[in-house]
């Protein structure tokens, strides 16, 4: 065998394929469920990043989304309702070398697990949270969720809800999140891209996936996911690029006083120079918040892509650093030696 052939073979051997992340378990989501595309995107992202499957841990809570670990040929833990972020925190702090993912939904992370969700984000522990947002409880067959819009009619709100929903981005920024991205389940390319970015980000990454529940909330994201409307109703944000969207790619986001505004380039005096350039890295999250909350109802496209990605200290690294610092100052010793050197010791001879 030629040397180059050996090298090429090794490269093939080392380079993981999406199939390397597929487990033998039969998938049990409903036909047509948005979760299939999320799974495919995740496997593609992992292959792109070429992470060894044994170095990956996927943790989930309860709900349709939380079945995902079973379908991954990695280490996986399908836990209890709402607790995935706390379990993942334990996993990551225990072994910071692992690539740790959380598969969760709007009920799992924003209702019963809300506390763990915000505190994981606040600590900025380096985990990647995939938040499947279908605005419904699917596994319990159709009750409204904390992201359901006011007035939403469901089995547990037959006359419509009388409460405001959480907006995941707002909650993430409120908890001082360092990374927030959004994608649509059907868009595998964009999803794979934001998942890769989430994995590369050091700190808690929240990826909100607008996911369709084909059985209990079909079409809830149609205005953004339907191919007829998608181009005009969404804008994909990329750091350093202009915020341009639309079928004709002639629309842009500009600043209008304190507010954002969608304009057509070449009309009403707006030129390409007026269109904002996306900066995902500013510590101040004011503009990120405005971008993340853009709403079709206000004549603005829904922002997709990486909206915020800011470098900050991560919890597990800082914890390790503290341990190293203490150990530098203290001589290495056994537990018995430690006891013998503590205060209040006396000897009986």
């Amino acid at each position, binding site marked *: 065998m030629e040397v180059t052939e050996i090298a090429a073979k090794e490269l093939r051997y080392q380079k993981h394929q999406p199939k390397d992340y597929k487990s033998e378990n039969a998938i049990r989501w409903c036909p047509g469920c948005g979760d299939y595309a999320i799974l495919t995107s995740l496997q593609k992202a992992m292959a792109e990043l070429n992470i060894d499957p044994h170095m990956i841990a996927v943790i989930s809570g309860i709900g349709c989304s939380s079945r995902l670990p079973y379908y991954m040929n990695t280490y996986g833990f399908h836990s209890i309702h709402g607790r995935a972020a706390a379990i993942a925190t334990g996993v990551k702090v*225990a072994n910071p070398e692992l690539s740790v993912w959380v598969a969760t939904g709007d009920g799992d992370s924003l209702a019963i697990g809300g506390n*763990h969700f915000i505190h994981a984000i606040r600590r900025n522990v380096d985990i990647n949270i995939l938040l499947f947002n279908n605005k419904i409880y699917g596994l319990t067959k159709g009750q409204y969720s904390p992201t359901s819009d006011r007035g939403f009619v469901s089995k547990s709100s037959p006359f419509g809800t009388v409460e405001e929903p959480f907006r995941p981005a707002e909650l993430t920024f409120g908890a001082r999140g360092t990374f927030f991205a959004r994608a649509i389940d059907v868009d595998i390319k964009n999803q794979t891209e934001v998942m890769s970015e989430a994995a590369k980000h050091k700190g808690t990454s929240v990826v909100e996936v607008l996911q369709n529940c084909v059985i209990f909330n079909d079409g809830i994201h149609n205005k953004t996911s339907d191919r007829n409307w998608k181009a005009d109703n969404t804008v994909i944000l990329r750091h350093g690029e202009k915020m341009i969207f639309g079928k004709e790619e002639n629309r842009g986001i500009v600043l209008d006083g304190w507010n954002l505004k969608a304009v057509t380039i070449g009309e009403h005096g707006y030129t390409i120079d007026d269109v904002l350039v996306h900066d995902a890295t500013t510590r101040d999250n004011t503009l990120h918040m405005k971008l993340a909350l853009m709403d079709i109802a206000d004549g603005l496209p829904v922002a997709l892509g990486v909206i915020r990605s800011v470098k900050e200290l991560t919890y597990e690294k800082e914890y390790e650093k503290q341990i190293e610092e203490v150990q530098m100052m203290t001589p290495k010793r056994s537990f018995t030696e430690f006891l013998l050197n503590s205060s209040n010791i006396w000897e009986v001879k």
Partner: protein
Amino acid sequence: MPTNPVVTDIKQVTIRFSGDSGDGMQLSGTLFSTLSAIFGNEIATFPDFPAEIRAPQGSLQGVSGFQVRIGAKDVYNSGDKTDVLVAMNPAALKVNASFLKRGSIVLFDTDSFQKRDLDKALFQTLDPFAELNLDYVQPIGVNITTLTKASLEDSGLENKEILRSKNMFALGIVCWLFNRPLEIADKLLEQKFSKKPLLVKANIKALTDGYNYGNNTDMTASTYRIEPIESTKGFYTDINGNTATAYGLIAASEKAGVDLFLGSYPITPATDILQELSKRKDFGVKALQMEDEIAGITSSIGASFAGCLAATSTSGPGLSLKSEALGLAVMTELPLVVIDVQRSGPSTGMPTKSEQSDLNQALYGRNGESPLVVMAAASPTDCFESAFEASKIALEHMTPVILLTDGYIANGSSAWRIPEMNDYPDIKPPYVQKKYKGNAKEWRPYFRDEETSVRYWGVPGTPEYMHRIGGLEKDHLTGVISSNPDNHQLMVNTRKAKIEKIADFIPEQQVTGDTDADTLIVGWGGTYGHLLEASLRLMANGKKVAYTHFRHINPLPRNTHELLKKYKKVIVAEQNDGQFAAYLNGRFQDLDNIHKYNRVEGQPFKVSTLIEEFTKIMEEK
């Protein structure tokens, strides 16, 4: 006042320092017990403080006490009644009046026994001793506040700080009463306030002046001399139960060669474990203060999944919140040590008071058939042994273990011989790559070791053993989600059998006392000291009594049934309404000899009451 000092040699004496929450009684008590231990006495302590951080000054509910029993030997508990009470205010006298022995000394601060102080403690007259009918004690009034002020006039301290040193002046008097060498106390103060040299100096001065005051005025008829003990050779320290628990976990992690992880949330009286382990970064301990009790246990479950010796520390209300996650640990068969430092319940109950009423919760407090290991520590130093053994069982048998301690032993301290870790057994977790004989491709997560029924531990990061676990029932062979009825029955049986097999790895139950005894007294957990002393005294009085104390509650030692059957009467004594007795009755339904003694007061047992009550039960036909 008597003038001829008599030095009395006695075996044991109980002293209680009592005052306002802010009077520094815990510090005086701790210093006195530590220096007594260093002097060579056996000690047992009982800090008894209110839940309020600062209740209204001088009020009855604000009284904070620290009781210490010292002796030449056989100090099994902190004592029923006191020989010496230090009362810094009238409220302290009133609250502790019923605990005073005949002839006991009451050292009180006359400066704080004025009309307004008496009013705050709801006295009707100006003579609190007469009002409480305390004609059988020796009151010794000293104007401690005035004398402390005079002592520290030139100390450079603010008036407020000077007043705070009253406790040291009082401690000085007590040190004189008991012939304690002041040099040890000085050293302890230097350690305690190492960053505040001015305070060290002032405290030592107040202490010394208090001592000299006692010496110069020959203020009492009796001073006590308690000789040092002849103990096993070695190095000693004094330790409380919470610290011993934390140390047991560290020792186990060192022995097993795995990192120690604690996920926790502050809760009285367990918080010290979190605080102690947070200090121990020199051993690489990862102690996380999480956002709630649930995150405390679930982060630990995550760390356990990732290969740590994982623990969580809590008290009763916290254990309630952890129930669902405990079930997850049972189902996923991950090692986990859960420490429940029990306190009075239900609900918030009496946070600073001790009880044994979480046993049912530990045994049964989960949905489904959810067996796990339950153990209980007997004394402050036994917390070390128990935490070590709990960790060993968790790691080697891949199971959650609940270790029950309680507020009494968690905060109480005794002298502890520093262990030689070579004498402790190895801890060998069943790592899949080491223990599983087949090849990696065929391995599935619920394959078990035939002898122990324990599943293998495949830790993330290990090549080739990727797998999925979770709270859903799994097929016993493939590890895939299964709701097959036969499989579920099999898994229920298997999980139960796995825990029962642990009985092969724990010692048989031992008995103290006569082989021909008619009555067996049974205890478990933190009541050990009181029950042992009561049993020994009954034996000394010629009663046919034996005593046995359980550390292992689930599974029980192999010989438990046989043992209990042998006696005419079995008296199960607990600080709950009969939970262990009911458990034994449920396990061994042929037993008809079980009697119960139960007190649920949030206070330690009293040996004298135990003796009376046990005698009554023994005399019943």
